[in-house]
């Protein structure tokens, strides 16, 4: 059972981790806690469903279309909402509230356009891969493979490419990066594209893992994602990755019967938050965040 839970934890954790990196890069560059991110993920998941279900496309082209569409929406939202707010020098509170308003608009628009019924991707639910004592569904295998690929690509992008390094420089010290000749406007656009691509793929993977999903599911994903971002230290992309994987593993392993009888599975999200609260009490700046010197 332990190995099975570990595998499940990796699946859950990698979805949370990808979403958390998306939230984290946006916070790093724009100081925006994006409450609408879960609904952006739901948008991606629904676009992929539209391609996969009614149109009959395969899962891979569907996911790619969903990522492109989510990135396009993400950039469009920057143009109509976030850029005007930046022009007004809106602070943390204004941005957070605007993102709450946006989350409402997005989620309800999805409900209006797509309806509240649950839906599933066309994958074979009975195809099972056995690996020693671990049994993985096709959806889980796809998720692990895609998530590993995404995380590796992301790591290479942030660490090795000029664009990735520029993004990290900007998130470290905006004024200094601007003086050093960084084109801030361009990096912001790239940030939104990256956040949109990540939201798209995370949404599709979450939809695969959850077996069935509806337009509301983005919000339920958002809370573990926030927990992962905070756990890793707000604004640290690597921290968000580690935080996501740690939370996913902790959530699944907490149900292990050998561990004080295990937690009732419905309380998995609660486990994430209790862990977060405990971690914050020890390290108020997050696991990878730096203590702020004012």
């Amino acid at each position, binding site marked *: 059972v332990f190995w099975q839970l570990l595998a499940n934890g990796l699946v859950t954790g990698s979805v949370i981790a990808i979403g958390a990196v998306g939230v984290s890069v946006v916070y790093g560059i724009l100081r925006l*806690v994006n409450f609408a991110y879960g609904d952006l993920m739901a948008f991606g998941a629904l676009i992929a469903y539209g391609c996969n279900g009614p149109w009959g496309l395969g899962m891979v082209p569907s996911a790619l279309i969903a990522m492109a569409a989510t990135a396009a929406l993400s950039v469009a939202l920057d143009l109509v*909402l976030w850029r*005007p*707010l930046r022009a*007004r020098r*809106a*602070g*943390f*509170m*204004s941005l*957070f*509230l*605007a993102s*709450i*308003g*946006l*989350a*409402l*608009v997005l*989620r*309800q*628009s999805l*409900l*209006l356009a797509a309806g*509240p019924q649950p839906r599933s991707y066309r994958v074979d639910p009975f195809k099972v891969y056995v690996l020693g004592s671990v049994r993985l569904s096709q959806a889980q295998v796809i998720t692990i493979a895609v998530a590993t690929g995404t995380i590796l690509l992301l790591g290479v992008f942030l660490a090795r490419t000029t664009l990735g390094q520029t993004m990290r420089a900007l998130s470290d010290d905006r004024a200094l990066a601007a003086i050093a000749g960084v084109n801030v406007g361009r990096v912001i656009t790239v940030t939104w594209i990256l956040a949109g691509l990540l939201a798209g793929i995370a949404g599709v993977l979450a939809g695969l893992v959850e077996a069935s999903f509806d337009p509301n599911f983005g919000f339920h994903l958002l*809370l573990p994602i*926030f*927990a992962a971002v*905070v756990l890793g230290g*707000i604004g640290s992309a690597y921290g968000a990755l580690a935080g996501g994987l740690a939370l996913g593993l902790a959530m699944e392993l907490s149900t292990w019967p050998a561990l004080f009888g295990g937690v*009732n599975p*419905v*309380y998995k*999200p*609660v486990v994430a*938050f209790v862990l*977060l*609260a405990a971690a*914050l*009490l020890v390290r*108020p*700046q*997050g696991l990878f965040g730096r203590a*702020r010197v004012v």
Partner: protein
Amino acid sequence: VNALASGGFWAFVGVVAGIYTIFALGLQLQFGFAGLLNFGQVAFMAVGAYTMAILVVKEGWSTWLAAPLGLAAAAAAGLLLGLPALRLRSDYFAIVTIAFSEIVRYVATNEDALTGGSQGTIALGKVGSAAEYNGQWTRFQDWVQGRLHLTSKDTAMLVIVWVVALALLTLVWLAVRTPWGRVLRAIREDEDAAASLGKNVLAYKLQALAIGAALAGVAGLFYAWQFSFFSPDDFQPLLTFFAWMIVILGGLGRVWAVPVGAAVFGFLFAGTRFLDFRPLSSLDSADRAYLRLIIIGLVIIGLVLVRPQGILGKRDEMVLE
């Protein structure tokens, strides 16, 4: 039926606006005066309502004893959240409060034995008997209706809710004028400066959080009495966001702006029920509910963009940052 012209409907809108006034007043104290980014206000409403209902149905308490205990439980929940969470930076605090409100809702949904689970308070009693916790309240309502010669029970509720709301508004208005209130505002403006004057910043923040939570508890009691049955789904984070919208709509750091914001919000919320002219008449009622929330989301965004100090707010005292 032309609901627009019916007095009963508008009495209902008034009751809801009154409950939201009390609910958002707590948030005004926490954010508008003490600067706390509380995004879990709905949790305290749930704690107040559930404590009262459970004590009445399961323990057979009188409503008049259970209600103050509901308030105490809400305030205690505020302290429980604040003791660890208030030590965090404000953006972390905001996220932890949302999480707290979701945890309360998870527990209420899953601890069937305690709360009746996802079915709500209807399942609080024994199997086969619908639990009733508002019998004493209904008798009180009848008594008010008789004494004041009111035409309906709804109007009686309207009067009771607004008498309590006005009393609480006055109390908070007086409280923020005392030295205590000035310290809160000093903390909002500059925590370190307040601390350097020897003020115990954490203690003041805890007090603001707990009093605001108790106010949410009062709102929870009225919510329970008004709707007679409730379930965990009634305490979605959406309600907290409504309170934020009311506080910002009215104006930050202004006690009497809260009822103005609540009235505008109530009107907006109820008014959008009547979006049934063409081409919207082709939508069914579920679709119109989505549309209503879209409009509310757009209003929140518009306010942040256009008037961050709210209708009655003073730009030089407090603007959203």
